[in-house]
C-alpha cells in the first residue's frame, strides 16, 4: 500500500511538472500533428481505410515512443540541472521506486500523444477510427504504455550514472520507429533485424494495438509486450543499486 502511494504521488507530481513545461507542452501539440500528417501522406496512395488506420495507429505509437524515449533522458538531465537528483538519491526508498513514477509519467504523456495523433488524423484527414475490439484495444494501449514506461525506466537508470546518456535516448528514437514496425511492416526488413525487434516491447505493443483495432487476435502480442515490460523493470531494479554505487564512487551525482 505504502509503495503504491509512493508511486502514485511521484507520478502525480512529475505529471504536474511536465504539464507546466511550455517547451514540452508545445512539443506535445506539434508532434502528434506531425506524425498524423506523415502517416496520411505516406499511405494515402493505398486508398484503403484499413491501410490508413494501420498507418495512423503506427504514427500514434511513434508519438508515444518519442514521448518516452527522449524525455526519460531529459527528465534525468533536468533533475541534475535542478540539483534534485542528489536529494532523490538521498531519500530512504529503493531508488527504483523513486525513478519508476518519473518514467511512468512520461509514458502517460505518451497516451495523450497517441490519442491526439488518432484524433488529428481523423478530423484533419478523415482517417476512420473504427476499433474492432475496444476492450482489447484499451488493454493493448495500457500494456504498451506500461512497457514503454518500463523501457524508459531502464534508460533512466543508465542516465543516473552516465551524464551523456540522454543523447542515447534520442539516438534510440528513430531506429525503434523502424524496427518496431510502427510505419513499415517488419517483413520488409532483413532477417537479422527480427530478433532485435522481438526483444523490444514496442514491437509487440504495436502489434497488439493493431490487431485489436483491425480485428485480429491481440492477446499473444499483449502478453509478450507485458512480459518484456516486466523483464525491463526487473533489469532496471537489478541495475539500480550497482549504478548508484558507481555514481557514489565516481561522485557523478552532483554533476550537471
Amino acid at each position, binding site marked *: 500500500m505504502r509503495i503504491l502511494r509512493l508511486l502514485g504521488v511521484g507520478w502525480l507530481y512529475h505529471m504536474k511538472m511536465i504539464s*507546466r513545461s511550455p517547451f514540452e507542452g508545445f512539443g506535445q501539440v506539434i508532434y502528434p500533428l506531425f506524425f498524423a500528417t506523415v502517416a496520411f501522406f505516406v499511405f494515402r496512395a493505398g486508398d484503403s481505410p484499413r491501410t490508413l488506420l494501420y498507418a495512423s495507429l503506427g504514427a500514434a505509437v511513434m508519438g508515444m515512443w518519442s514521448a518516452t524515449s527522449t524525455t526519460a533522458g531529459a527528465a534525468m538531465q533536468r533533475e541534475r540541472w535542478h540539483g*534534485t537528483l542528489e536529494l532523490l538519491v538521498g531519500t530512504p526508498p529503493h531508488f527504483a521506486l523513486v525513478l519508476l513514477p518519473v518514467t511512468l509519467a512520461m509514458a502517460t504523456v505518451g497516451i495523450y500523444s497517441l490519442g491526439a495523433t488518432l484524433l488529428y488524423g481523423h478530423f484533419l484527414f478523415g482517417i476512420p477510427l473504427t476499433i474492432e475490439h475496444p476492450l482489447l484495444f484499451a488493454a493493448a494501449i495500457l500494456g504498451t504504455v506500461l512497457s514503454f514506461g518500463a523501457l524508459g525506466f531502464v534508460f533512466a537508470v543508465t542516465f543516473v550514472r552516465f551524464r551523456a546518456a540522454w543523447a542515447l535516448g534520442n539516438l534510440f528514437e528513430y531506429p525503434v520507429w523502424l524496427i518496431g514496425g510502427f510505419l513499415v511492416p517488419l517483413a520488409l526488413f532483413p532477417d537479422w533485424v527480427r530478433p532485435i525487434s522481438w526483444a523490444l516491447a514496442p514491437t509487440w505493443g504495436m502489434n497488439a494495438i493493431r490487431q485489436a483495432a483491425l480485428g485480429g487476435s491481440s492477446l499473444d502480442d499483449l502478453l509478450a509486450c507485458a512480459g518484456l515490460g516486466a523483464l525491463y523493470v526487473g533489469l532496471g531494479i537489478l541495475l539500480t543499486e550497482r549504478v548508484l554505487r558507481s555514481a*557514489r564512487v565516481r561522485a557523478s551525482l552532483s554533476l550537471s
Partner: protein
Amino acid sequence: MAVVEAQDLHRTYRTHTGTLRRRVKEIEAVRGVSFDIEKGELFGLLGPNGAGKTTTIKMLITLLIPTAGSARVLGYDVVKDAREVRKRIGYVFGGERGVYERLSGYDNLRYFAELYGVPGKMQKQRIEELLELVGLKGREHERAEGYSRGMKQRLHVARGLLHDPEVLFLDEPTIGLDPVGARELRATIASLTDAGKTILLTTHYMFEADALCDRIAVISKGNIVAEGTPRQLKSRVESGSVTEVEVYGVPDETVERLRKLEGVLAVWVEEREQAQVLSVQTRADIQLTAAILGHLNGANVGRVSHREPTLEDAYVALVTAE
C-alpha cells in the same frame, strides 16, 4: 556512543584534463578527517571554499563513498547501511538549487514527505508546522520558481525537517542570504538544538560558527587543523597584536622569512581588491614593525596599521598556514 563518528575519512576525485590527450588527475579533497559529534551537540565544520567541507558532509549523508576511512551515523555505517542512515537524517544544502521550480512550495514538501515515509495522515499537519517555522506560511501555494533565494533556502530547511530527523546536516545554509534572512535562519537553527537535534553545520563564516556551535573543527585543504569550543579557539589569539601591511606583490619567500622571525606567531596574506594585505601576528611584548618592513624592502608598501587580534585572525591564520 557518539551520534556521528568520522574515522580518518579520505576522498579523492578523479578528473580529466585535455581533449585529445586525456590525462587523469587525482585531487585529494579530504585527507584523513576524524571527529565525533555527541547527542544534542551543534558541531561546526569551518573552512574556506574548497577545504573539503561539502565532500565530508556528502560522505556522511551517504551521497559519496569514502576512498578510505569510515563513518557511522547513529551507529549505522554510511556505506553498508546507507538506507538506515537516510531514514534518520535530514540535510540542507545552501543555494537555490534542489527545488522543483514548477511545483509550489507545498507540493515540494508533500512529495518529499512521501519519499521520507511521513504517514499520510500526518503529512498535512507536519507541513503546516514547518511552513510556520520557516516563515513560508501564506506563500506555500505559489510556484517555487517565483520564490526569492531566501525563501528557497527556507524551503530547503523545511524539507530537511519533514520526517523529524534525529540528526541534521546543514551545508552552508546561510550562503547568499541577506543579513536579515541569515539572522532569521540562524535563529531557526538555534531553536533546533533547543529541541534536542544533533547538528553538523558547515560554514565559512567564523562569526556564524562562533554564535551557533558548541564545538568547531577548522578544516583546511582536506585536513582538520584545529578543533575545540569557540572559547578554546579564541584563547589561541587572546594575546599579542596584529600588524597589517598593505602590499602589492609580496613573494612567498618573504612570507616564509617573516614566519621565522623571533616573536612571530602567525603570518598570512589576503587578497583585497587590487592589493594584498599581509598580516603578522606577534607576541604582545615584541615590536616588530621595523623588521617586517625591512623584509619587505623592494616591494610596494601601502598603509601600515596595528590592532588587537580577533577570532577571525585565528581562523585565517589556520586556513592559510602551509
